[in-house]
C-alpha cells in the first residue's frame, strides 16, 4: 500500500493533539518522540502518482483529466521532504531545552511541516493554495510565539500583506481554472500549450508571480521576511527560512510546468531573473549594514533565496538542478548558522558589538559555526561551493556571463559580512570578567549535536554532491524548457 498521504496526515493529526494538550507536563518527552516519528515519514511513500479518494484519470472528449487531487512523489520531492523533516526534527529537539515550552510551539512546527510538504507534493493548484495559506498563518504564529512587541508587529505586517497576496494568488488559480477547465498542473500545462493565450492567462501568470514573490521572500516582500526571521528566536528562524525556501522552489516549479513551453515564457524568465538578482544584491547590501547578528543572517537568507530563484528561473536542466541543490544546501548550512546564533544569543546578546571573545569560551561551537559560515560563502570542501559552482556553470551556459560576475561580487560581499560577524563575535578580544560570565552559561548537548549533524551533512554533501545530484538530474531534464 502506498502510504504517501501519511507524510502530511500524521503531522496534522499530531498537531491537533499537541494543540489540545498544550499544557501537559510531558510535552518535552512527547516532542522528542514526535521528532523520531518525523524522521520515518519521508520513507513512507512510493514513487509515482497518488490519487486521493481513488479518483484517477478520466477522458473527456479525448483529453485526459485528473478528476480529484493528485500527489506525486519523485526523487526530487523526496529529497526536499527529507531535508525539511530533518531540520524540523532538529528544531523540535532543540526546543525541548527551552524554558516555557508548550504544545503550541510543537503544534505549529508540525502544522508548518505538513503544509510545506503538501505544497511540495501536490500537483493540484487549489490544494497548493490552501496549504500555502496554512503555511503563511503558521509562520506568523511561530513569530508571535516570541511574545515581544516587535514580533507581534512583524507578524501583523506579514499577515496583512499575506492576505492580499493570497487572495491575488487564488484569483490567479481561478483564472487558470476558467481558462483550462482543470486544477491539475500537468493538465493545465497541456491545455495551455494547445490553445492560443488569452489576457486571462497573462493575468493568471502575473498573479502567480505575486504569490511566488510573497511566499519565497523575493523583493519587494523581502523586508517582511527579514522581520519574521530576525524577530523570533533564532532556532525558530531556522525552520521558518526552510519553509519559505521550499515554498519558493515548489512555486517556481509550478510556474515552469505551467508556462514553460509558451511564448510568454521568455518575458516571464526575464522578470523572474530580475527579481532574483534584486534579491541577491539587496540582501547582501543590507546585510553589510547590520549590527544585529539575527538581522544579518536574515538578510543573508534573502540573498541566498535569490541564488535559488536565479537557478530555477533559468529554466535549463542544469539551472533547475543547481537551484534546487542550492536550496537544499542553503537550508542545511543556514539552519546551522541560525542555531549558532541561538547559542550566541543565549550566552550574551544578539548584537555583535556586545559580544566578543567567544572563541575561548566554546571552541567546538566556534569551529562548527566557522564551518557553516565557510559553507555559506562557498569555500571548496563544503556544499555551498558545489552548488554555487553548478549555478555559475548554468548561468554561463545560459549565455549570461554578466550574472556570473554579479554572483562573484555578491559572494565577496557575503564573505565580508560573514567574516565581520565572525570577528566581532568570536575573535574580538574581551575582558577576563566577560569570559567568566560566558563560562557560566551551559550549552546544551542537543544544540551542539544539531549543529554538528548539520555541519557534517554540509561536508558530506560537499565531498559527494552526486548523492543528491543523481536524484535531481533526471527530473531537471524532465521539467526543463527547450
Amino acid at each position, binding site marked *: 500500500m502506498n502510504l504517501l498521504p501519511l507524510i502530511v496526515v500524521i503531522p496534522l493529526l499530531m498537531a491537533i493533539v499537541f494543540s489540545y494538550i498544550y499544557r501537559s507536563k510531558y510535552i518535552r518527552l512527547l516532542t522528542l518522540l514526535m521528532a523520531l516519528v518525523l524522521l520515518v515519514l519521508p520513507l513512507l511513500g512510493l514513487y509515482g502518482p497518488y490519487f486521493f479518494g481513488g479518483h484517477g484519470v478520466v477522458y473527456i472528449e479525448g483529453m485526459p483529466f485528473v478528476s480529484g487531487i493528485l500527489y506525486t512523489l519523485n526523487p526530487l520531492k523526496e529529497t526536499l521532504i527529507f531535508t525539511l523533516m530533518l531540520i524540523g526534527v532538529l528544531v523540535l529537539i532543540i526546543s525541548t531545552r527551552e524554558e516555557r515550552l508548550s504544545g503550541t510551539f510543537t503544534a505549529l512546527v508540525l502544522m508548518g511541516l505538513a503544509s510545506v510538504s503538501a505544497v511540495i507534493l501536490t500537483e493540484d493548484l487549489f490544494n497548493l493554495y490552501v496549504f500555502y495559506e496554512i503555511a503563511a*498563518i503558521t509562520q506568523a504564529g511561530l513569530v508571535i510565539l516570541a511574545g515581544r512587541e516587535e514580533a507581534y508587529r512583524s*507578524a501583523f505586517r506579514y499577515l496583512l500583506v499575506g492576505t492580499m497576496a493570497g*487572495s491575488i494568488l487564488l484569483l490567479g488559480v481561478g483564472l487558470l481554472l476558467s481558462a483550462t477547465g482543470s486544477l491539475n498542473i500537468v493538465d493545465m500545462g497541456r491545455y495551455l500549450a494547445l490553445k492560443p493565450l488569452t489576457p486571462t492567462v497573462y493575468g493568471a501568470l502575473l498573479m502567480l508571480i505575486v504569490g511566488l514573490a510573497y511566499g519565497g521572500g523575493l523583493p519587494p516582500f523581502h523586508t517582511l521576511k527579514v522581520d519574521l526571521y530576525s524577530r523570533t528566536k533564532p532556532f525558530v528562524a531556522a525552520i521558518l527560512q526552510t519553509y519559505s525556501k521550499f515554498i519558493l522552489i515548489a512555486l517556481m516549479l509550478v510556474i515552469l510546468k505551467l508556462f514553460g513551453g509558451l511564448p510568454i515564457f521568455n518575458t516571464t524568465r526575464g522578470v523572474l531573473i530580475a527579481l532574483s538578482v534584486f534579491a541577491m544584491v539587496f540582501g547582501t547590501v543590507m546585510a553589510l549594514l547590520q549590527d544585529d547578528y539575527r538581522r544579518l543572517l536574515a538578510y543573508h537568507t534573502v540573498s541566498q533565496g535569490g541564488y535559488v530563484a536565479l537557478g530555477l528561473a533559468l529554466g535549463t536542466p542544469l539551472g533547475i538542478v543547481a537551484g534546487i541543490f542550492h536550496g537544499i544546501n542553503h537550508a542545511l548550512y543556514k539552519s546551522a548558522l541560525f542555531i549558532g546564533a541561538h547559542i550566541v544569543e543565549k550566552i550574551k546578546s544578539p548584537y555583535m558589538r556586545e559580544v566578543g571573545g567567544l572563541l575561548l569560551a566554546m571552541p567546538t561551537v566556534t569551529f562548527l559555526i566557522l564551518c557553516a559560515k565557510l559553507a555559506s560563502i562557498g569555500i571548496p570542501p563544503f556544499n555551498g561551493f558545489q552548488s554555487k559552482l553548478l549555478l555559475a556553470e548554468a548561468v554561463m551556459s545560459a549565455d549570461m556571463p554578466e550574472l556570473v560576475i554579479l554572483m562573484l561580487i555578491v559572494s565577496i560581499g557575503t564573505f565580508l559580512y560573514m567574516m565581520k560577524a565572525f570577528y566581532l563575535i568570536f575573535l574580538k578580544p574581551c575582558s577576563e570578567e566577560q569570559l567568566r560570565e560566558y563560562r557560566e552559561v551551559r550549552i546544551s548537548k542537543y544544540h551542539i549535536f544539531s549543529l554538528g549533524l548539520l555541519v557534517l551533512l554540509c561536508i558530506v554533501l560537499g565531498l559527494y554532491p552526486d548523492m543528491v545530484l543523481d536524484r535531481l538530474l533526471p527530473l531537471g531534464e524532465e521539467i526543463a524548457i527547450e
Partner: protein
Amino acid sequence: MDLQLASFITAGALVVLGLYGFFFVDNVIKKIIALSIISSGVNLTLVAMGYREGGYVPIYIPTVEFQVFSKHMAYPLPQALVLTNIVIGASMLAVMLALSIVFYRKYRTLKTSVILKED
C-alpha cells in the same frame, strides 16, 4: 446585458476597490475590511464562473430528468472552491482582528502608520 459578464465586471470592480482600500487607506480596520472585499471579489469571480444560462441549482430533485438536469446545472466545482475560500478568509481575518485589538490597547489608535511604524 449578459448576467455572467455583469458578474465578472462587478467582481473585477470589487477586487480593484479592495486593492485601493488596502494600499491607500491608513486605518487598520479599514485595511482589513478592504482585504475582505478583495476576497469577496475573488469569490464572486469563482461563483460567476460556474454560471450557466437558465441553469439549475446543483441539487438534484427527481422531478427533473437527470440528463436534462446535468446539461443545465450550474458547475459545482467553483462553488466548492468558494466554500473553502470563505473559511480561509475568515481564519486570516480572525488573527488580524486579534492582533489589531492588542495593538489598539497599546497605542489607542488604529492608524497603520503609527501601529506598524519602523523599528
